């Protein structure tokens, strides 16, 4: 009986995790990492495998008909998805059609071979040809190579011209040049500026190509907003332009979209979700803000499989959410149907945008059963809870989704609620505490009592001497050198404290302010602190013993430990502060850390100066020499290590050889 249950369970798990799909669907999971999720789309059928398509470049879906720019055969193929009939357009008038767009009345074809845009009516009769704009603004020598195009509701054409660096060419319905639209930006780095200082004009012209990247493809949504893709970009390959041409896609502006450098086509569905296709056949689906929902598909490497592509060239999506992908190499179109999982997610996203938070919440909760660790789902659920005013649940989900910004907002509300409930008590307690200390201080002063705890233990006293470094660093370093305070043991304990604080700083910050170091091991952090500090002590000793420094190795060991005083004393408070602050007040954390660290460096500087009795110049020199020495030591050590490694390997090899022969 027991065996049977186990067997059933096993079969169930296999069933649950197996799929009849040939490719995997990925999404973003915990810690912003890729993870495999349930299948979002499945290939339902393959069409046009007998239509004789030869290097088709573009495809457009309108009113149940697929318009395919069949470049190799110089025609536009129209395929009716219902009747499954094909018709041809422009077989006698086109040369190399690479882009096609259809509006209510006309079919627009970008023909790169003839450098013209050809317009047909729905029956296939040629209506008009638009050649290179004659306007002076366009430029006499500028090339007009229309590759892809879209048309807005007023009949304005937006054309991606091959090799055009100025952006999208915008023409009105008569072919008059209206201007360029939203060019990409050139990024000039500090390195470029540096090079500029040295290169002559001729050299710059010859070597440097600082042209903006051209757009590769474009799409238009039903609101008339233009979407573009740029190849070889990371973080902002996809852009959504307003009518001015500025990028308004939030994540893309931040350069933090999850994207690919080889996108070839983009399309937008009726709800504003973005689908982008790479040449290798990967399909990326984004929500309206540019968050990745799914990534699926891929390249067919050894043999053909449904859902994989040789060279993908165009993507379209219909109102039911079916995705059509054109394979240029094989000349076929594959149709992907959304699964229940994908449909549910789409529905929830739409409901959220419409403001129906409660309804979207219940769907999100359903979807959570499919995949418990998907960022998209937890984000959606968190937002729904947030709108509902359940901030604690929202914070929980945002944390799983690794959405720090939204988590910070939710946390702000939680903190605010807490303050609202307890403000009166807090105010009264604060007032009482203040009064208590004020009156207490007055009384003590009047009666001339000094509250000072005398500690007899020398070691404890030495460790507590740390606090003197804050107010009187110069005097304290003098006494440390004299040996009145401080010992090797106390210094070692302070080093341990320092390491503890650094580890706490790395690992112990709150979720909002953590340094993304969850995978780093404590040992690694400890080693990366102790090694430089000990190297510093040693090399500073070497340098100062040549440069008439007064300090002995022991002195240097002790003063270095004590100069970490500001960090050891104040940084823990800053770390604790991260637990009550949000992004709103993040300035306090960064400013505080900056302040503490600069203070520590200043104290260290004073320490070098006082311990070795240097002038200002000597101090700076000593510090720089020490740093150079550290580098030299590291270099020598790594060379020796490599050599030893070689010797060891040789000896090991000989021994192996001998053992082998003997046997």
């Amino acid at each position, binding site marked *: 009986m027991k065996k049977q249950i186990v067997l059933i369970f096993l079969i169930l798990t296999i069933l649950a995790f197996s799929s009849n799909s040939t490719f995997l669907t990925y999404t973003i999971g915990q810690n912003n990492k890729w993870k495999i999720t349930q299948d979002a789309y499945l290939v339902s059928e393959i069409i046009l495998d007998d239509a004789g398509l030869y290097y088709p470049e573009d495809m457009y879906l309108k009113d149940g008909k697929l318009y395919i720019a069949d470049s190799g055969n110089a025609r536009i193929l129209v395929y009716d998805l219902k009747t499954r009939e094909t018709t041809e357009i422009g077989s006698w008038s086109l040369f190399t059609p690479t882009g096609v767009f259809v509006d209510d009345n006309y079919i627009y074809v970008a023909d790169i071979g003839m450098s013209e845009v050809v317009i047909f009516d729905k029956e296939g009769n040629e209506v008009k040809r638009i050649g290179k704009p004659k306007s002076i603004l366009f430029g006499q020598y500028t090339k007009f190579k229309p590759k892809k195009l879209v048309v807005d509701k007023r009949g304005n054409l937006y054309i991606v011209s091959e090799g055009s660096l100025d952006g999208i060419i915008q023409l009105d319905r008569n072919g008059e040049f209206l201007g360029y639209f939203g060019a990409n930006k050139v990024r000039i780095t500090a390195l470029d500026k540096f090079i500029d200082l040295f290169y002559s004009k001729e050299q710059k012209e010859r070597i440097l190509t600082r042209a903006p990247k051209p757009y590769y493809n474009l799409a238009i949504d039903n609101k008339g907003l233009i979407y573009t893709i740029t190849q070889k970009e990371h973080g902002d390959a996809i852009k959504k332009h307003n009518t001015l041409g500025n990028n308004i896609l939030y994540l893309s502006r931040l350069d933090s979209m999850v994207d690919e450098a080889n996108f070839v086509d983009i399309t937008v569905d009726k709800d504003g979700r973005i689908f982008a296709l790479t040449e290798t056949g990967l399909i990326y689906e984004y929500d309206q803000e540019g968050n990745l929902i799914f990534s699926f598909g891929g390249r067919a490497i050894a043999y053909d499989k449904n859902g994989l592509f040789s060279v993908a060239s165009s993507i379209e999506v219909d109102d039911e959410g079916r995705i059509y992908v054109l394979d240029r190499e094989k000349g076929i179109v594959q149709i992907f149907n959304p699964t229940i999982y994908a449909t549910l997610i789409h529905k929830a996203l739409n409901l959220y945008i419409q403001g129906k938070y409660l309804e979207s919440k219940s769907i999100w909760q359903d979807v959570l059963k499919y995949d418990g660790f998907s960022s998209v789902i937890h984000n959606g659920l968190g937002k729904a809870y947030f709108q509902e005013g359940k901030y604690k649940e929202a914070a929980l989900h945002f944390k799983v989704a690794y959405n720090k910004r939204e988590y910070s907002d939710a946390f702000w509300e939680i903190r*605010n609620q807490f303050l*609202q409930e307890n*403000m*009166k008590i807090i*105010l009264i307690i604060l007032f009482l505490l203040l009064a208590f200390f004020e009156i207490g201080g007055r009384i003590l002063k009047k009666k001339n009592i000094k509250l000072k705890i005398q500690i007899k233990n020398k070691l404890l006293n030495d460790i507590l001497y740390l606090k003197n470094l804050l107010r009187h660093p110069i005097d304290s370093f003098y006494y440390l050198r004299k040996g009145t305070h401080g010992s090797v043991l106390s210094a070692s304990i302070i080093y341990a404290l320092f390491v503890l604080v650094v580890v706490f700083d790395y690992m112990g910050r709150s979720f909002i302010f953590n340094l993304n170091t969850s995978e780093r091991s404590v040992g690694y952090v400890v080693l990366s602190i102790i090694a430089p500090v000990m190297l510093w002590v040693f090399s500073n000793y070497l340098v100062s013993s040549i440069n008439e420094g007064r300090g002995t190795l022991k002195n240097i060991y002790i003063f270095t430990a004590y100069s970490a005083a500001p960090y050891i004393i104040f940084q823990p408070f800053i770390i604790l502060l991260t637990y009550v602050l949000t992004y709103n*007040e993040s*300035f306090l954390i960064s400013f505080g850390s900056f302040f503490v660290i600069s203070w520590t460096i200043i104290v260290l500087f004073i320490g070098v100066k006082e311990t070795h009795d240097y*002038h*200002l110049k000597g101090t700076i020199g000593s510090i720089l020499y020490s740093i150079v020495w550290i580098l030299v030591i590291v270099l020598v050590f790594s060379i020796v290590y490599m050599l030893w490694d070689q010797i060891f390997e040789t000896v090991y090899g000989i021994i192996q050889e001998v053992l082998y022969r003997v046997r």
Partner: protein
Amino acid sequence: MKKLKKYMHWILLSPYLTLFVIFILLPIVVAIYLSFTYFNAIQSPRWVGLQNYVNLFTRDEIFMQKVLPNTIKFSLIVGPGGYILSFILAWLVAQLTKIPRTIFALILYSPSLTAGVTMAVVWRVLFNGDQQGYLNALLLRLGFIDKPIQWLQSPEHLLTIMIIVSLWSSMGVGFLAMLAGILNVDETLYEAAYIDGIRNRLQEIIYITIPAMKPQMLFGAVMSIVQTFTTAGIGVALSGTNPTPQYAGQLIVNHIEDYGFLRYEMGYAAAVSVVLLLIIYLFSRIAWKLFGDN
């Protein structure tokens, strides 16, 4: 006669005391009283207890999300920054001979005198939002930006510009006091210190100059604290709008003006003022601790 003598000091003090009570003590007491009431300047104040304070810290999202972080950021940089700058410049100027010293002191002091005029003449031209603005023109020519930035209207830049302008005009009364303090340090002290083993200017400053001019340092610190926390007009003057774009340059005093004189919620405005008073008092106490002579 004897009785009169007993109260003589009160009579002598009375001119000052009357003025102090009327112009300082009374307003503070009234403000503290009003902060516990609802008062709209028409009806008589209605007692609401701690409600204003509770609202301030829990319901007023603009105060907690914008105004308070702005004020803290502004005063943390401008306060100590301006103070240190004043001291360094005062010390540098003090090294000069008399006539250049006077000229430089005047030059450095003038920004705090002429803030209103220079705001229009210098800063708004420098940070002008079109390509004629000096900064925009410079950046455009160097190729760092490809279109002019609306420096004074953009929420990202306004506070930074406010900080820069405030630092520039922070050489006020505190600066003059410190200059006088440095010049007043007894020369013989330096000589004695050099005999005792002081060897460079840094040690001179730390061991002689600063201890000898503690009163002026304290004065300068208190002045800079009060000044930074009560700065109000600068964001409005720069951006030309009140409230500043997306509350980016809104400081506590702006908030008080907003509630007091635009919305006529005097009680609430009074509560904000009392909080401001407490903040200033707290920081002054810290300054006393650092520089006071007990």
